[in-house]
């Protein structure tokens, strides 16, 4: 039976938090794979931004990583646990915030947070303590007593973040986390991410927003058409010429423009 504490679930502190090797994912009926030979290793303390255009394969990678979707070949280990052979143990060690929030809408915000805490077997005392902390961060207050169906997109995003943090996961995975958040909350979340990673946790989030990745992350991984094109730490990148935006566009748009023009001709 997996333990409640993500820290205890990790057998060895040196074990990479994320270890993806040669991941290939091809959807049924698709002619080519959405993810091709994708490998990635992340460690505790890192904030990794997965950058890519729409349809580049960011969400598919995260879905395979979190066990939402099966994959064709390769391997995924989270905190040492294989997502295919030990899925429950692996899932105890991460929290995931999807880009879709139309879930659990019949519950109130409080019920959802309790549901998530129960799912990860968090004690009554710890959930009360963490709830206070995250309630202050996200500021939902009394709205937590309302059904989630009454929430705006941003509020749903916040309650999903709160729920995913209730078990203090060693790995926090977020799909497009900043979309729908107001500037003040975005700033608070960005600061919180840095503090959370500094406590020895790892954060992986997908985004097509270069600026938010540069502001929050200490490492960026660029994915284009399902292939990892770049993987660098910002401390190394600073020595390179040009901005991250220019670099990102240069690395990813050449093919994109070709595709667009082809599509245009078809139309």
């Amino acid at each position, binding site marked *: 039976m997996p333990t409640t504490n993500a820290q205890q679930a990790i057998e060895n502190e040196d074990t990479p938090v994320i270890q993806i090797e040669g991941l290939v994912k091809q959807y049924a009926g698709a002619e080519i794979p959405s993810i091709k030979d994708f490998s990635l290793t992340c460690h505790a303390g890192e904030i990794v931004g997965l950058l890519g255009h729409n349809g580049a394969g960011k969400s598919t990678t995260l879905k395979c990583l979190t066990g*939402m979707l*099966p994959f064709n070949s390769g391997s995924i280990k989270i905190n040492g646990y294989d997502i295919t052979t030990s899925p429950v143990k692996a*899932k105890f060690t991460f929290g995931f915030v*999807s880009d879709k929030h139309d879930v659990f809408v*019949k519950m109130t915000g409080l019920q959802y947070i309790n549901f998530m805490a129960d*799912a*990860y077997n968090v004690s009554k005392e710890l959930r009360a303590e963490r709830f206070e902390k995250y309630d202050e961060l996200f500021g939902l207050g009394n709205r937590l*007593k309302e*059904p989630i169906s009454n929430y705006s997109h941003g509020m749903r995003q916040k309650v999903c973040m709160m729920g995913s943090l209730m078990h203090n996961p060693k790995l926090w995975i977020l799909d497009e986390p900043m979309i729908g958040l107001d500037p003040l909350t975005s700033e608070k979340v960005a600061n919180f991410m840095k503090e959370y990673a500094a406590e020895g946790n790892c954060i992986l989030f997908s985004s097509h927003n270069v600026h938010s990745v540069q502001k929050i992350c200490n490492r960026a991984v660029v994915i284009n058409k399902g292939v990892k094109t770049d993987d660098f730490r910002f401390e190394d990148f600073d020595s390179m010429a040009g901005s991250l935006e220019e670099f990102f566009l240069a690395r990813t748009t050449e093919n994109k423009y070709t595709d667009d023009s082809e599509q245009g001709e078809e139309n």
Partner: protein
Amino acid sequence: MTHYALLLKKQLFDAFPFGSKSARSKNALGYILAGILAAGIIAAFVIIFSRFTSTYLQIKINRVPNLAARQFELMSVAYFALIIVFIITGVTQLCYNLFENSDIRILISMPFSSFEIFAAKLTWIYIKQAALSLACVLALNLTFFATANLISAYNVIMTLIIGILLPVIPLAIASVLALPFYYLKKLIGSHYLLSFAAMTILLVGFCLLYNYAFTIAQGLIGSGKIASLFNERVMNNIHSFAVFDYPANLIAGIMLGKEVGKNIGILLAILLVSAAVGLLVIHKVFVRVTQTGISVHIPHIKREGYRFQKRSRFGNLIAKEFITVLRTPSYAYMYFATAIVMPLMAYCSANLGTAFLGGLLGNVRFDFELCTFIVLLYSSLTNTFCSTSISRDGYMSMAQKTLPYSPAQILSAKMLFSGIVSELSILAACITLAASGLESAGDAVVTFISATIFAASQIAFATRLDLNHPHFSRTDDGEIKETNSTVSIIILVGLTMCFAIGMLLMQNTIRGLISGTEITSDKSAAYAYALCVPLALLAASAAFFFVNLKKVYANLDSEG
């Protein structure tokens, strides 16, 4: 109106998705099964309505027959009932298509005028209503004219015309009621327990009324005094109503060739005014809802303080199922309310069945066989709800895959939740039947065990079938609004199995009735059939449930 055809095509595509060959064949299977169910319902209607028509047309007032008046009354009242049905279905269709379907949010942001969107949606609603109307009017008229020996080319042609045009008037009335209904639905829907209690009371009331009416009808038919129900006072009231129930009286007049020109003229005028009113009202309401963004926000009752409860991990999943069902009025109605009313329905049916069989078989008792068949039948209909166990989760089914639960835990929580409700319902039904003396306590225990095993097999089969072919909703809250091929399959398989078990249980009776020999009761054989057949079904369902379970669950994709 340049995009009207495009938007109408979109509606058509939503209704009949042209996916892969296998997807098309699955859809085709669903349509075939739905067609079989509809054919069964129509056949039952034709038999009952035909008998009622021949009885009604013979009614005399003060010993004076008046065939023309009876024909007119029957047609007029029948059309009135049809119009009421179409108003109700029209209101629900308008609410769903214009206010609840999430595609509206996307469509209004695209370069389509609100009138184009509205016109395409209204046309689609009308096409569906017209198809339903044509089926109903054809069944009604052809049964009536065949029974009354009035079939003619004129009647057939008018049946087709009326069948297609009839929904115009109910849709116009529905258009006025659609927004108030939508608001009321939202208002009641946010008070979950209140709406659940209201629906249960309505269902119990309907069941008692049905039992009362059926008992009276059975008594009258049995004694051959059905006509005495329609005494002079009742007939005068029916006639007065039939003469003034516009526009049903006009349609009845046209069908019977009575003042045809005048009736057609008035009906056309009503149709035109209705169409204009309908278009105007819905257009105004629609534009208001879409452009000013009316979203009925119901303030929630605030509770003081935060309460944290710790549940077991598995109990957590059961609680999630409970909340989802209880807080979705249509699910609560379909499941909890039906399960609560099931014992009452079983009692009413067993009561009527015992009286009927008593008259047919004399002193030979078949209480156990009858009660077991009835409990199986009703629990089978209650368990139909399990055929959307996976689909009703929508994207939640994907989110759950990222939580530290195994597929077995998630699916068994769903099945256990369904099983608990089903078991309580079956238990209450068996206690009711035993307490009312309709079967002995010992028999009730065997009935309970038989129904329990049968329910378990049905729940496992329905859950796995839904996992294989989930039909996810595209509405904001993921609520399943329409039935699908899985539901049709579960209903048909459930009913077929129930009737098969019923036939086995009652085989002595049936054989005796057919051959005219002495009818005897064999309780031991009945017990064996009641227990062994459900056990065999459970074994088959369990095998079906576990084959490739992990792989199929892993491939579950609400977006695929």
